[in-house]
């Protein structure tokens, strides 16, 4: 363990912290923007509560465009936007902007699928009882889809851990970046191995937590 010097420990710890911040903050942002977006997509869709093709189609196109752009390209392509939002285009804070954007588009689709899984009969029953559209969204769609929404967040978290490894390209730091710089460029396989090990444990932990929550919430 001669490679695990105090300095190395600090670097690993710092990189782990950066990964958590990038993944955590961008997930929170992606849920905050992705859920309303998904609801809008769902509600204005062909079978939605208020079909609005003129709004639904362009919105779907934008979401697909964001999803089909490779993350590394998206990251550099939106640098002007990043600078506008984060005040800088370099660093962990700056990396959060493209991560959140990619995750929002990704989550919007996953959320939309989860909403589509809600039994239309339950929505119809609520309509028959005189529920308003906002009551249907808040008291039927979101609560009934909750296990699916949580499962979607779990998938997004795991993907974001992977995406965040690319954040090194704009100085975002994080475990993936540490692995590349030390493990690969400085020929320190132990660093690479520890980085990979920590990432595996992180992803396993997130997945188990997500699965446990879904089981607890679904009552199926």
């Amino acid at each position, binding site marked *: 363990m001669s490679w695990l010097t105090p300095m190395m420990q600090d670097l690993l710890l710092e990189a782990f912290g950066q990964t958590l911040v990038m993944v955590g903050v961008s997930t929170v942002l992606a849920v905050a923007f992705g859920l309303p977006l998904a609801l809008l997509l769902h509600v204005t869709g062909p079978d939605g509560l208020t079909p609005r093709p003129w709004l639904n189609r362009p919105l779907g196109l934008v979401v697909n465009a964001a999803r089909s752009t490779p993350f590394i390209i998206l990251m550099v392509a939106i640098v002007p936007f990043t600078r506008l939002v984060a005040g800088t285009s370099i660093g962990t804070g700056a990396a959060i902007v493209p991560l959140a954007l990619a995750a929002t588009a990704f989550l919007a689709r996953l959320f939309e699928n989860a909403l589509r899984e809600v*039994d239309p*009969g*339950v929505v*119809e*029953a*609520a*309509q*028959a*009882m*005189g*529920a*308003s559209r906002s*009551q249907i969204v808040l*008291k*039927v769609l979101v*609560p*009934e889809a*909750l*296990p699916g929404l949580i499962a979607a967040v779990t998938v997004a978290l795991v993907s974001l851990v992977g995406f965040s490894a690319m954040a090194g390209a704009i100085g975002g730091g994080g475990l993936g970046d540490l692995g590349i710089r030390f493990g690969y460029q400085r020929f320190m396989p132990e660093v690479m191995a520890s980085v990979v090990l920590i990432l595996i444990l992180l992803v396993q932990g997130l997945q188990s937590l997500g699965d446990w929550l879904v089981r607890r*919430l*679904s*009552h*199926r």
Partner: protein
Amino acid sequence: MADLHITRVVTPRDPAHTTMIMRDMPELPVDDPAIRLAGLSKRFAAGGPAGGTLALADVSLEVRSGEIFGIVGRSGAGKSTLVRTVNLLERPDAGVVTVLGQDLLGLDEPALRAARRGIGMVFQHFNLHHRRTVAENIAFPLEIAGLSRAERAARVAELLPLVGLEAKRDAYPAQLSGGQKQRVGIARALASRPRLLLCDEATSALDPETTAEILALIRDLRDRLQLTVLLITHEMAVVKSICDRVAVMEAGRVIEQGPVLEVFTRPQQPTTRRFVAEVIGHGVPAGTLARLPAPRPGEERRLVQVLFLGPHSTRAVISEASREFGIDLDIASGRIDSIAGEPFGVMALAAYGPAEALEAAFAWMRGLGLVIEEIAA
């Protein structure tokens, strides 16, 4: 389904029989129907699931308050669309929908939502919230209506015993049987004290025993809460067991309607007859037919279905007919049942004798109120 070939025989109306039907009808002003549907038409857009078909074609219907009105039809007959127009889950292209004195098509959104709170609805697949307990499901319409937590709890406490689910108040739908789920559906539909209950194939996902239970519950609730019930079904047996009046639908039209006993005993349309035959139809089993003796020279053999209602005694009728008219009557099949609470029997008879004697015997039986139809052998 039994493939009956029935030759229609004109039957005189028995006045005693008519009063029997009337006695069962609630005494209500006919000018105040709970539901009045007039001239409803609805065409689904081409390319949709129903592909440009006419789901409703000029349908008019009145449901009197306090009665259980059944709409029966095959899938695709338009009955589901029809029941959905009553709370405007489906908007007709043309026509008038008046429910509890209110013209629903003239209401704006908030007023329509308020009107819907006065119309309970029960669904084939229950449509319960999977993540809400029984109590929370029942409380849902009250939550929508803005009642406080305490008011909701009090109402749920009244409703649970009404449907016999006190022990399941904190269970989730996944932990319930089909019958229990439908009980939750019914309690939920009744939560905001509606005067009208719509049942959309409410028992079609249930086994026969549970179906009987749920139907008994609906009838019991109608009596206790003075509800008006409109139910749709594809099973004539459901109509037979609880409806007061029935409408038969085919291809978006109401082809026949009337008191259940009337429709069962004197079906006019071929479709209605097939429906009725499902429940009371009584062909002669093939084996039996082959074993029936041939008529003696100078005599005829006629196969008839005899339907009798109320207090007639089969044996007395049969023995008296053979004695009085000098004919032989052979029971090929038969059974006793009840429709809308009235006992009735149906038999297939093979009658042997001279043509005039047979005709005279049949006429005499009709005079007693029996419905006699010839079965083509």
